[in-house]
């Protein structure tokens, strides 16, 4: 795939742009028209026979989860240790968020679509499940599976199906659910689990480490360039549950992988908790691209319901010349608390963070990144685009830290806010901590508002207000959208338009 493919529908060379417009990904302008008038289309629930444990959390519940997953003793110990630590911790309050009290005893910590003894082929998977993922645009049957993309589909607490795995196995690539990895590759999991995000890292990380259910495991062996996008699709379906997924990605020396995650949930009046951990380890000269399109149910226009998305994502650029790129498009969730971060340990390691965070109605987002420079000559780039509408609150929070020995480092941060209403808020909390003289840090920030003059100018040219906002917002977010793999970029553009529908006027 051409990673630098310009998503501008028209370039300067007519032949080239024609071929772009003829591909099946569609034209961005058409997409905007297509979605004008649509609402959250993932809000349905599926009637799936679900094994759900009673609400509440104590050591017995953790033992039960571990037993259900037939885990080894060391992993149960890992969980219990995290749980005991969690009991001593308090929820962080430093974020610019108004989080209602959460009753952790009112949540069920494990919900799994029931299955006949471990489905081995598609015939054993509940047809309703296949239908659900079809509806989400994620066909699970191999013959229908998305070409060029392997998908791990996670429903509530368990992975349902991973596509293309045999093809990947030929290259020595491991792409499976976290549970399977524990069973089939215990040494790898044991070696890396908790090394980037220790169970004691923060309140939600400790909770996740105690009760995590499923997620994806990726291992790219030395020198292998993963030939397709790897993708995990997270779906919350059951009511009264939380989702606590765990993802672990290891890229060995000289390897490359592009990984995507997508998330949706039904529309419910209650708030549901999603507290995930993602750990990424990147060895010498290896590269990982990690892209997220987060579209959890955001609550209704009065702020009722929605997902609490409290996530710890962190990568360790352990090897020299290793590289990690984060790209996130955050449009969903009632409350987002999320700071995908990179520890740049290797010399000349590189990390990028490209983010678009959109909030509308009563959504709250406190999101950003941390770039911790430990290695000499390491470089990082942060481009954050916040878009706030309605009564929402949208904060960027970032830390750039350069340690005394990390000489010759570079960071460039660009932090933009776009306001679409007079009742929303945009906030920026950048922290910069540089402890040597030879590093260069740049920070730029802008705040803008779509003006009535701009809207009228578009109107006068025949462009409706909704389309004008979509044009302007997509233009504003383009720099980040262009970093997404093509399939996701189109989806993400649609999302922006839908999320902001009716927000100007």
């Amino acid at each position, binding site marked *: 795939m051409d990673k630098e493919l310009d998503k501008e*529908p028209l370039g300067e060379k*007519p032949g080239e742009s024609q071929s*772009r417009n003829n591909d099946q990904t569609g034209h961005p*302008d058409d997409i905007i*028209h297509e979605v004008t008038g649509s609402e959250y289309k993932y809000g349905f629930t599926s009637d799936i026979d679900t094994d759900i444990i009673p609400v509440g959390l104590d050591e017995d519940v953790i033992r039960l989860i571990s037993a259900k997953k037939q885990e080894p003793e060391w992993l149960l110990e890992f969980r219990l240790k995290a749980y005991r630590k969690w009991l001593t911790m308090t929820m962080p309050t430093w974020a610019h968020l108004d989080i209602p009290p959460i009753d952790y005893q009112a949540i069920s910590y494990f919900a799994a679509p029931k299955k006949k003894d471990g489905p081995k082929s598609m015939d054993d998977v509940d047809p309703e499940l296949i239908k659900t993922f079809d509806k989400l645009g994620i066909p699970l049957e191999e013959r229908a599976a998305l070409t060029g993309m392997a998908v791990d589909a996670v429903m509530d607490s368990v992975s349902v199906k991973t596509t293309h795995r045999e093809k990947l196995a030929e290259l020595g690539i491991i792409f499976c659910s976290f549970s399977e990895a524990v069973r089939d590759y215990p040494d790898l999991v044991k070696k890396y689990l908790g090394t980037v995000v220790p169970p004691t890292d923060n309140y939600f990380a400790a909770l996740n480490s105690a009760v995590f259910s499923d997620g994806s495991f990726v291992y790219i062996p030395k020198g292998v360039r993963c030939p397709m996008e790897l993708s995990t699709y997270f779906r919350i379906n059951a009511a009264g549950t939380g989702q606590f997924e765990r993802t672990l990605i290891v890229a060995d020396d000289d390897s490359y992988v592009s990984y995507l995650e997508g998330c949706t949930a039904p529309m419910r009046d209650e708030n549901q908790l999603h507290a995930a951990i993602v750990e990424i380890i990147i060895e010498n000269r290896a590269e990982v691209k990690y892209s997220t399109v987060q579209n959890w149910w955001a609550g209704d226009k009065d702020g009722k319901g929605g997902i609490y998305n409290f996530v710890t994502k962190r990568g360790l650029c352990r090897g020299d010349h290793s590289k990690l790129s984060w790209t996130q498009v955050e449009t969903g969730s009632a409350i987002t608390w999320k700071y995908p971060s990179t520890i740049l340990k290797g010399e000349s390691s590189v990390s990028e963070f490209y983010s678009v965070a959109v909030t509308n109605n009563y959504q709250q987002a406190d999101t950003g990144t941390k770039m911790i420079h430990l290695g000499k000559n390491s470089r990082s780039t942060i481009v954050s685009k916040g878009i706030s509408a309605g009564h929402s609150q949208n904060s960027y929070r970032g830390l750039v830290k350069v340690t005394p020995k990390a000489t010759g480092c570079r960071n460039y941060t660009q932090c933009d806010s776009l306001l679409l209403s007079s009742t929303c808020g945009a906030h920026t909390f950048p922290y910069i901590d540089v402890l040597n003289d030879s590093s260069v840090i740049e920070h730029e920030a802008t705040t803008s508002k779509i003006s009535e003059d701009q809207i*009228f100018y*578009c109107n*006068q040219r025949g*462009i409706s207000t909704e389309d004008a906002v979509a044009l302007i917002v997509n*233009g504003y977010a383009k720099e980040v959208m262009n970093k997404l793999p093509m399939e996701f970029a189109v989806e993400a553009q649609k999302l922006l338009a839908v999320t902001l529908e009716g927000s100007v006027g």
Partner: protein
Amino acid sequence: MNNLLLDVKDLHASIEGKEILKGINLQVRPGEVHAIMGPNGSGKSTLSEVLAGDPAFTVTGGAVDFHGLDLLSLSPEDRSHEGLFLSFQYPVEIPGVSMVNFMRAALNAKRKYFGEEPMSAGDFLKLMRQKRAIVELDNKLASRSVNEGFSGGEKKRNEIFQMAVLEPRLSILDETDSGLDIDALRIVAGGVNKLRSDSNSTIVITHYQRLLDYIKPDFVHILYNGRIVMTGGPELALELEERGYDWIKEAN
């Protein structure tokens, strides 16, 4: 039916409670060029913005017929689709939206309004190239964000370029000559003249006779204090150039 493209009858409009237009009457036939002149603050720009449907203004009286349609009941975008084009005095910058994307959205919105399919990418690019030539607009400008970082002259040329693409029935040029050096003025006026036909009409709003040397009007109106106080032929503009506006002010 009379043969009028635009028929403005006793139009009143105000902004924030202050009346700016105090009974405008104006008739424009297909193929005609009308110049509206007048001192600062007389309501020239307001007239163009009210006709285009700027929501900042409130119409408090009168009616406007636009080739058989009740113009004032149409949304700004429908007025555009129906063939009304305003070349803005101060074209606004829209960062991040390329001219190409912008024009494509505008053109396809119009096609959709008339039940036509969106134009293919190839045809659209051909059209862009062809229309750009009319105002000698650089290819690079077309790929930049709308008006962002354009010089004053480039912005005005860009307005006429958009006019060329949208092929309006009635173009209102609001002080298109302001801020233009003589070369840019010649190019812009040349573009307008190339687009003139027997079926479309132009209203030129200007302070100066200079522009009218290039765009020859059929009628010249003098707008003062919210009313058209005098109408004549091209010679009226020359007289204004010589005598200024004071005698108009004194007479009214």
